[in-house]
């Protein structure tokens, strides 16, 4: 089991969600986050003064899948989230040791 964390542009959320639904991924966790990478942030002229936007708003998605599905999910996210410009985001894949569904006590694969 793997956890896939994807940082994407906010306006791409619906596209990515629909694309993932399309390949049978139903569950995910979404967080509104701020951060920066190579995109760094930018300077805006606001009320005549320069205003530095250092942390840019992004969406973080967390998806837990069986290891065999990882590549397909990554491919889908990349395809849906890509604009080709800087700041499109990043994807991380992490190992998951254990999953428990709170209501039923089911574990691991059944609990995904």
């Amino acid at each position, binding site marked *: 089991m793997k956890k896939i964390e994807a940082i994407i*542009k*906010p*306006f791409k*959320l*619906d596209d990515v969600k629909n694309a993932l639904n399309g390949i049978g991924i139903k569950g995910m966790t979404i967080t*509104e*986050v*701020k951060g920066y990478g190579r995109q760094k942030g930018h300077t*805006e*002229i*606001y*009320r005549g003064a320069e205003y530095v*936007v250092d*942390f*840019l*708003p992004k969406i973080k998605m967390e998806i837990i899948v069986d290891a065999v599905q990882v590549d397909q999910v990554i491919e889908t996210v990349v395809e849906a989230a890509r*604009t080709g*410009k800087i700041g499109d985001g990043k994807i991380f894949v992490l190992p998951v040791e254990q999953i428990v569904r709170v209501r039923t006590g089911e574990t691991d694969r059944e609990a995904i």
Partner: protein
Amino acid sequence: MSLELHAQQKALEELWQQGLSGHELLLRHTGLVDTFIIDHFQASPAVQKARGAIALVALGGYGRRELYPFSDVDLLLLHDRKAKKNMQEVSESILYPLWDAGFDVGHSVRTVKDSIRFAGDDFIFQVSLLDSRMLVGTDSLYLDLLKRYRKKVLDGHRHEFVRTMEKLRGQRRSKYGSHSYLLEPHIKEGKGGMRDIQAMLWTAKAIFGLDGLAAMEESGMLEPDARKDFEASWNMLARIRNRLHYISRRHNDQLIFEYQEEMAAAFGYEDRAGMLAVEHFMRHVYGHLQTIAVVTDLFFEHVHEVLGLTEKDRGERELEKGIVARSNTLRLAVTEAELSERPHLLMRVFLQAARTGLPIHHRTRQMVTRNLQLVDDDFRNSRRIARVFIELLTQEKNSMANLETMLETGLLPAYIPEFAGVESLAQHDLYHIYTVDRHQLQTVAELDGLRAEETDLFQSLSSPHLLYLAALLHDIGKGHHTDHSVLGAEMIDDVGRRMGQSDEERNCLAFLVRYHLFLPENALRRDLDDQEFIRQTAELINDMDRLTMLYLLTIADSKATGPSAWSSWKATLLMDLYLKVKGSLEAGCTVDTDKLGEEQGVNWLREQVSDRLRPGEQVRMAVEELPADYLMSFTPEMVVRHLRMHRDQSTLLQQKVLLFPEDRHGSWSLLMLSRDRQGLLAKLCGVLALHKLSVLAAQIFTWPDGTVVDVLDVVPVANSGFDEQDWQALENDLNLAVNYRLDVGLQLHNKLQPVGHRVKRQVQQLKKKVIVDNETSRRFTVIEAYGGDRPGTLYQLTQTLSDFSLNIHRARIATEVEQLIDIFYVTTADGDKVDDGRLLEKIKQTLLQIIGDEEAE
């Protein structure tokens, strides 16, 4: 025996399912428990064995015979000293069966003396005694308790009683008035809930000896109409609470989200008129809570006054004819007959409240409510009253409380009947924590907050009152089948008309309501780096004032929706969108001169220019005839400068190019005035290239008399300083070129040859393309050329466009890495877009050849 009670409770639940109503159910339930307890008491061997006197007393809700299905049963086991040693056994014989039957029992075992002492210390116990009721046992014991309770605890402590009661009431309001309880009201402790009812009844009983609503009405403390509404609301809340206990199978008094739909169905509500059943239901629930809150508020203010708890100040102060301030409250000092002569006082008293920050006295509030028939069509269409209303709405000190009072007295919905459509209107989602009416008031309050935070933005607004009106009314279209923004825009137009707003002001109001969701919806869903989207948005809004108002309205609206609707994350996205659209509006690249608003903007600019000319000052070009796009690209001061140069050097201008270089940080701005000639821009670009200046941007304007005003932003190719540049030589070459005395093309070819070599290798990998776009701009054909950054290319490109007899109106020249991106806004000589497909193809091929030149080499 407990089995029997259980069976009876079951039977009661069945009766309830068949429709046994609120209070009736409570009475029956109380009866069942009474019988159960009395039977056990009488059958208890411990009681028979005891030598002293014992009495069982019901307290609190049980004492009032308001026992909800899963409420606590509060008991006081009263005894004298002789019975003391038996009480352990006695209480066990009563309490064990109750516990076994599943009741939550609150009990205490005390003598009369202990009870009185404890009542003095513990306010909760003190008020629970107010509701006490003798169940079984020795009567004299209970009567003794009552007598001493009145004498020792109540008498002489009335002020303290009322103060404590109000303190607790305040604590409840702040604890159960928080966000989570707005969405899921607490039927017992919340504002307008059961505790408010009890607090009023307790106080009436303890302070005035008035037992119940009937007695209060008789004494004149409660108006008959108010009593009727109050009782209806009370009964409805009782029914809701019964049901809540049954369906949650426990002592639960909060109408949580998941039960609301079920309740709505159970109470026979249906989906209707575009609203969910649950929304109709919750609307009534909020309405009932509101009724109780208003009646109890009035009651406590009255008590306050009767007891003389209200601070006395230096008597009475007349604020205006008919309105006075006394004891820190505002009052109407007129009779009802006088009020009907001067109905505008209804509105003026709220203006005074907004100005002074003082609350309106409860009698005056009741008077307003009683006289709402004065708010007729004349009142609603009165300019004078509209002015008062707008002033109070936009008062800096205006508080939420004042608007709430206006809503609660009924004046606001009477004055703006459209508002009545959303009163107590609930929205069944986790997002909107206020009902629509409160949400709109809250939006106004948030706007007040923004006024302090975003002072500059606020001060830039020409008509802030429109923003306030839009905030107050942006959701009035809700609760119907259709898109509430569209409907609301129509409705606010009517409101604006009645308030005497001009066509232009009403347009603005309708626009703000129609598009109040545009920014938040798009900030999250659209790519804010998409220039086309930004441009379209700028075109839609098309006015800086409107953009700023929409932005402020969006923030206030989001903040007033609930904690999940606003975060710094959303704020960042929204600000990004705002700034980009603002930038687009300022750049004016998308200007569309046929729009009304813009024409006004241009007219305003003309006035600004005229104002800056000295009285009687002559210029050789009429300000009225200057082209709109030119006026919008320069400050009025710069326009005046151009006009003066044009006048002072008119002879020179016919033959020469006048050059005015200026050092801006990062680049040099070259203003060039001359007479229009074929291929002028190409020649300028060529000469600049010869002088090792690289062009970043160009704006080209032509006045009706053929004068050309060009502004080119340039940077030196070599890192030389502004003062090192030989501006005189440049001006000379420019003049040679425009007068056909300089072979720009050949010179460039010769002079730049060595440099060309160096650049060549890098250029090889670059993508070269030419895009012709007739969609982006309404007035211009946009030609984009991507190629290698080779000095001289710009000359060739512009020269080519000139050869095709195209006018270049604007040019943007950007360099990314070593790639050159030239964007030209062109028209044909007649000023139209180029739409001849074959011609366009030819232009494209020729340009491609120029930028692809080196590949061929």
